[in-house]
């Protein structure tokens, strides 16, 4: 049988422009798949990659959590740097630990201007 030791189907979330305002303006960046009529299967996701593109938002950070939209916390990862006008990529195993979430993932930024586009790549488990 020699089953794979790593489970998970790798998929990407949408590109979401984060707006200034902190956790109160957190937005959904990846929704746990819950198929209507799904027979069995509780799904979770492990974040594999995070890509950020800073649209003149200044040097700031992005936080990722799995609280409700507009609440944000609890955080899943330490703040990720986002540099003004640049694209930053972060990878599991290299830049952050392989965190798992059973709830939808949201993100937010404390920036005061501009937006930050964010996209996640996750492995869906279950």
């Amino acid at each position, binding site marked *: *049988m*020699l*089953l794979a*030791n790593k*489970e998970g189907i790798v998929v990407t979330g949408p590109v979401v422009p984060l707006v200034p305002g902190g956790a109160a303006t957190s937005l959904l960046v990846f929704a746990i798949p819950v198929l209507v009529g799904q027979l*069995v*299967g*509780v799904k*979770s996701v492990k974040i594999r990659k995070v890509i950020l593109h800073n649209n003149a938002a200044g040097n700031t950070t992005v936080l990722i959590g799995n609280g409700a939209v507009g609440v944000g916390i609890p955080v899943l990862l330490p703040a990720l740097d986002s540099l003004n006008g640049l694209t930053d990529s972060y990878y599991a195993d290299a830049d952050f630990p392989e965190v*798992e*979430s*059973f709830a939808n993932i949201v993100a937010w930024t404390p920036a005061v201007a501009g937006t930050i586009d964010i996209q996640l790549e996750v492995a869906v*488990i*279950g």
Partner: protein
Amino acid sequence: MPDLYIFKAQVGMFDPVALQNHNVRIHYVQATYYRKVDFLEGIPPFQCVNLGALAAVTPSGRVNIVNLEMADNEFGLWRWYPIDDAQIRLYHPAGIAKYQLRNLQVPVDMNILFRDPNLVSTEIAVWQNNRPAAEAINGHAFALGAVRLIAIGYRFHTVDLESGKDADPELVNAIKVGKAPCTDVWCSGRGIGD
């Protein structure tokens, strides 16, 4: 005669214990049933149970795995592994510890995929609705969001050789004295000293 038997290990495959028209002797606790397989099919890997979220350093209650139940006259052959980092104690049926040694009930955790890639040591059979049950132990200092088990196996439909329209007393006697081929299938654990 195909080379089929329980707990068979080989690279890349998980064989059924019997094929069409093969005789099987089902053992469930202390009962024995003589049957003949008249249909079988593979069951792809699926998430058979979620034992639930589990707080840090906590064991769960015992949860019946109803998704591994089989219909009347059927038995299932299953191998399984967890995909969340808990130790799993299996009971089969719910009142009898499985993988029981004198001083320890051996648990299964995610390491099973490294240590026993064929999952041969996890193999169990389920007779009709006599399903197994499981408990999870979270030894971590953090909570687990779920404890999920994946099962893979075969479904066998059988006919009764001891009574009814398919009864064949001569064949049953031949099996009992070892003159007809038959595969033994243990569909439960056994209590210590039982």
